[in-house]
């Protein structure tokens, strides 16, 4: 297998902000990500600029695109046929595209979906693009928390303002770069759990994924008033992450039980006054 292992550790449920500024590295990593998806019986989607060029690149990197396209295992769409299908960027309509894709892939027996989203369209003057960072944060719970979709959002560092890119980065639970592989250990993973109802959060929660955590936690009680969040896999949480957890319990929207809290998280929860929040139960 050729190419850099930038995206090798991305699994279903991950949502990665990939800031890449080298076209050759980009193509190699995409090919590697696509090949792994086809191997794992995932449906693979590319959405963005120049799908024909990307398909050509995949062929050069040894992907049998003709049979994958023919079997429905692979699809490549322009931004205009995906993110901008209504003529502008409509976050709700885009989420609907993903939900439809999930339903179809499940019905067809796929184990999951891998999406490479080329976000270059957002660097152009597109109506609705101002909703992009909130969309990126919200799809964490709307699309990814079920653990059926893996998404890599490719942002070309040369085309985006660094400060804007930083805000987009915060909306993703994970990150990768041209030379920095996606590392699940230092990223956040948030997966829905149905018994007991809630989430499993693992990895590291810090400034780099704060908005992603906020967005998911904000919707904790949407479907159930009693929620358990298993944080035993959370290796690191910063002061802001702990605050997000205390605040949602204090909001009155439901009862939150945190299980598997590490000593540092216990300290931070206490620091934020967790013991005074009646709707919050904290367990080591």
């Amino acid at each position, binding site marked *: 297998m050729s190419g850099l292992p930038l995206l090798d550790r991305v699994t279903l449920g991950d949502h990665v902000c990939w800031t890449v500024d080298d076209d050759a590295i980009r193509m190699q990593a995409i090919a590697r990500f696509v090949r792994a998806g086809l191997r794992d019986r995932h449906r693979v989607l590319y959405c963005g600029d120049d799908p024909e060029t990307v398909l050509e690149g995949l062929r050069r990197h040894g992907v049998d695109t003709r049979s994958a396209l023919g079997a429905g295992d692979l699809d490549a769409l322009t931004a205009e046929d995906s993110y901008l299908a209504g003529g502008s960027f409509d976050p709700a309509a885009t989420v609907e595209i993903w939900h439809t894709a999930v339903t179809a892939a499940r019905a067809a027996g796929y184990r999951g979906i891998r999406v490479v989203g080329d976000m270059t369209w957002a660097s152009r003057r597109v109506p609705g693009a101002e909703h992009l960072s909130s969309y990126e944060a919200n799809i964490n719970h709307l699309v990814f928390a079920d653990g059926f979709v893996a998404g890599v959002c490719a942002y070309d560092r040369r085309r985006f303002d660094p400060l804007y890119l930083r805000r987009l980065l915060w909306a993703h639970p994970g990150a990768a770069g041209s030379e920095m592989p996606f*590392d699940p250990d230092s990223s956040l993973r948030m997966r829905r759990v149905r018994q007991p109802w809630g989430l499993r959060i693992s990895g*590291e929660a810090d*400034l780099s994924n704060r908005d992603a955590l906020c967005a998911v936690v904000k919707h904790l009680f949407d479907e159930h008033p009693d929620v358990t969040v298993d944080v035993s896999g959370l290796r690191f949480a*910063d002061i*802001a992450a702990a*605050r997000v957890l205390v605040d949602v319990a204090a909001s009155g929207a439901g009862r939150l039980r945190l299980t598997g809290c590490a000593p*540092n998280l216990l300290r931070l929860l206490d620091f934020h006054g967790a013991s005074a929040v009646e709707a919050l139960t904290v367990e080591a």
Partner: protein
Amino acid sequence: MTHRGLLYHDVAGFLSATVPFVRSAVENGDPVLVALPGHNLDLLRDALAGDRGRVDFADMTVTGRNPGRIIPGLLLRYAAEHPGKRVWFVGEPVWPGRSSVEYPACAAHEALVNTVFEGRDATFLCPYDASLLTSSAIADAWRTHPVMIDHGVRVPSPSFGDPVTTAGDFNIPLPPPPASATVLDYRRVPDLVRVRDLVRRQAGLVLTGDRLEEMILAAHELAANTIKHTTGPGRIAVWTEPGLFACQVDDTGHITDPLAGRVPPHPMLPSGRGLLLVNQICDLVRIHTGPSGTSIRTHLLT
């Protein structure tokens, strides 16, 4: 608020002022907290042993080891536990044996007590060991207390001045980190992982368990502040000294609030608690800040 410095020259002088102070508090039915270094804590506790009424005690060398923690972690907390009451404190944050790196943080703390408790119903007695402390430390006590008690006589301090200005006089450069320090430059959010890894590796040589995790958290919050509040890069240096692990963060920011890290922000404000947490965790937090940049040094005892 009253904030009095007590210059004591011997045990008798120490007890002759502190015992009546505590008894007055108890007689008034007010809460009183005695925070002293161990030997003085024992002396006063023994002297009060036969008394009725409740007195709270804390070892200042533990709870007040970091002077930046005394206001939020000890004084404000105690006051909050006794709403509507006058709170009385006997506090000795400056004891013989404080190092030259620690001392400016102690003096700044004494000055800022005046600011934080202005208009509050609180009364402080701060013993200073006049027989062992340096003359400049005694002079600083006169500068940070509006009233001093010396040889049993209560006098208004002629050198007491604006507390924030006085605290600013202790905003002085830190000695440079040693050449043996391990240094890492950081600038972007993803670099925070490298900062944590560095501290885990280096502090892991001398700290274990919860203390190690706390040091990582403190260093992370300092570096995250650089990234959140400044546009420039930051540098973290870590090293060990006998009995402690040291971590210094330098950046281009300027902390303009003299009470940063000492007073909790309004509960509704979502952020601004990083320094408060670092003060809570660390055994020393020294800050040198100005328009040209900020250095924050933290110690964790090993």
